[in-house]
């Protein structure tokens, strides 16, 4: 059985001018512990697709199956990390945020705290367990968000441009950290980005989408050994290959850096 199957998913928006197709007939499979990046120009529906996988939006047609079960609404088999730092609950400490999902599961407090502390150690925030989000930098807040999404042990981690609002230097550190976390946890990750270098650095496979309506344009395997060196020739070749795929649809020299 395929761990995650995205099967002919179509999504429509209601606009004043009538129905607009955001995503059209998207299909691909994802293997267990695979790190998938979805790359595409803005407006290609990559975030929308992630929201459908998360269960926040119902598809107009097609379905998504996780371990054979069709997705209906959100569920605890998926953890979600958003782009916006404001996703954390400001009234809870880092520890309180991370233990939220465990609390919902009904796990007793002592065990909750223990697991949450482990997760915070995983994202190197063990010194900040008792800090409130507004005392943490943007990068730290996103690390708390990752720990929070991992804490209740979902099999899939969905990430919607989690580092897009960070400065370039912090973003590099975060990519490194995420690669480590992924290696340690072996979660299946679906990661949406418009940053080609980020996709090549992180992904096992990159799904390239094109816009209006959003369709899968290419499905590219990145076979570079890890940890990857962004300055190596092979890395740059991969980037060029992705850019070419994007360049067919995007004017100029494509997205990314």
């Amino acid at each position: 059985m395929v761990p995650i199957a995205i099967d002919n998913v179509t999504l429509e928006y209601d606009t004043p001018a009538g129905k607009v197709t955001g995503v059209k007939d998207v299909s691909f499979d994802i293997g267990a512990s695979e790190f998938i990046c979805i790359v595409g120009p803005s407006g290609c529906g990559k975030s929308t697709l992630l929201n459908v996988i998360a269960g926040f939006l119902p598809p107009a047609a097609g379905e998504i199956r996780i371990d054979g079960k069709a997705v209906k609404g959100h569920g605890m088999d998926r953890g979600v990390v958003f782009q916006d730092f404001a996703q954390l609950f400001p009234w809870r400490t880092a520890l309180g945020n991370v233990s939220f999902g465990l609390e919902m599961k009904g796990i007793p407090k002592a065990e909750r705290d223990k697991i949450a502390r482990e997760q915070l150690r995983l994202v190197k925030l063990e010194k900040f367990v008792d800090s409130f989000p507004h005392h943490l930098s943007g990068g730290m807040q996103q690390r708390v968000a990752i720990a929070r999404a991992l804490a209740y042990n979902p099999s899939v981690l969905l990430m919607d441009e989690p580092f897009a609002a960070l400065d370039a230097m912090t973003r590099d550190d975060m990519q490194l950290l995420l690669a480590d976390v992924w290696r340690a946890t072996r979660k299946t990750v679906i990661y949406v980005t418009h940053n080609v270098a980020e996709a090549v650095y992180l992904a096992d496979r990159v799904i390239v989408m094109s816009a209006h309506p959003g369709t899968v344009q290419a499905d590219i395997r990145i076979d570079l050994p890890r940890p990857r060196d962004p300055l190596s020739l092979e890395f740059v070749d991969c980037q060029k290959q992705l850019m070419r795929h994007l360049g067919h649809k995007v004017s100029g020299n494509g997205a990314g850096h």
Partner: protein
Amino acid sequence: MSDTIITSAPKTGASKNNVSMSDQSKGRRSLWRAGVVLIIAACCYEAVARSGYFAPALMPKLSLVAQTFVAMLLDGTMIEHSVFTLYRVMFGFLLAVLVGLPLGILMARFAAVEGFFLPLVSALMPIPSFALVPLFMLWFGIGNLTTILIVFYAATFPMMFNTWSGVRSVNPLWLRAAGAMGADENALFWKVIIPGASPFIITGLRQAFLRAWIAVVGAEMIAASDWGLGWVIFDAKEFLNTDVMLAALVVIGGIGFVFEKMVFGSLEKATIQRWGMSRVAKG
């Protein structure tokens, strides 16, 4: 006196670690400033009182006011008046919270409730509670019931209105994140919506109490008999006891200050300031 005006607040380029410290020293400084301003105001009053512009019976010297104040404290009357006023204000205020808070939440969550209450709030909120006192007196007589109902009227709408805005302002991303982590309706309400709306709810409590406090003194002036700080002032007028009036005013100001700064101030400090959410309420 002169040294107070010169002290200008140094620019605090505070890093995140010493925010609480600079907050503390800022608080102490503003307390000092408030004390000095009060002393200046008292001096101005004393200068006018001594100038002989008003007859001494109409504008007593501060020493006499202080004497009366102490005497009324010692014989217990001032405390008893305060207890009556506090009873009425707390009763009305708590009633207003018990009604306004749930109604505000329901308004924000159900369009039908909002459609019914929003026009009502908009129409009734601008009516000064004091304007209703004569009518309430005819309906409910003189005494606790009327004053409590006036307080209730004054405090309910700000409570309702702020709660409504607060629940509406809850970041949808929090609801999404909580939903993804398995929160059911009950958990969403208690663990996301209520804390998320807390900056506005606390503003509501604050405004409601302020209005309640103004309302209770006004209502007591004409709708209370024998007891209450408002009644004391109105009663003292009959006998030209301006020293008593001023002493009661000091108590009214003092109690108001204690609630505003100490009760609601510390509530804010323990919650939304600690969470870095105080900016949200002001925006």
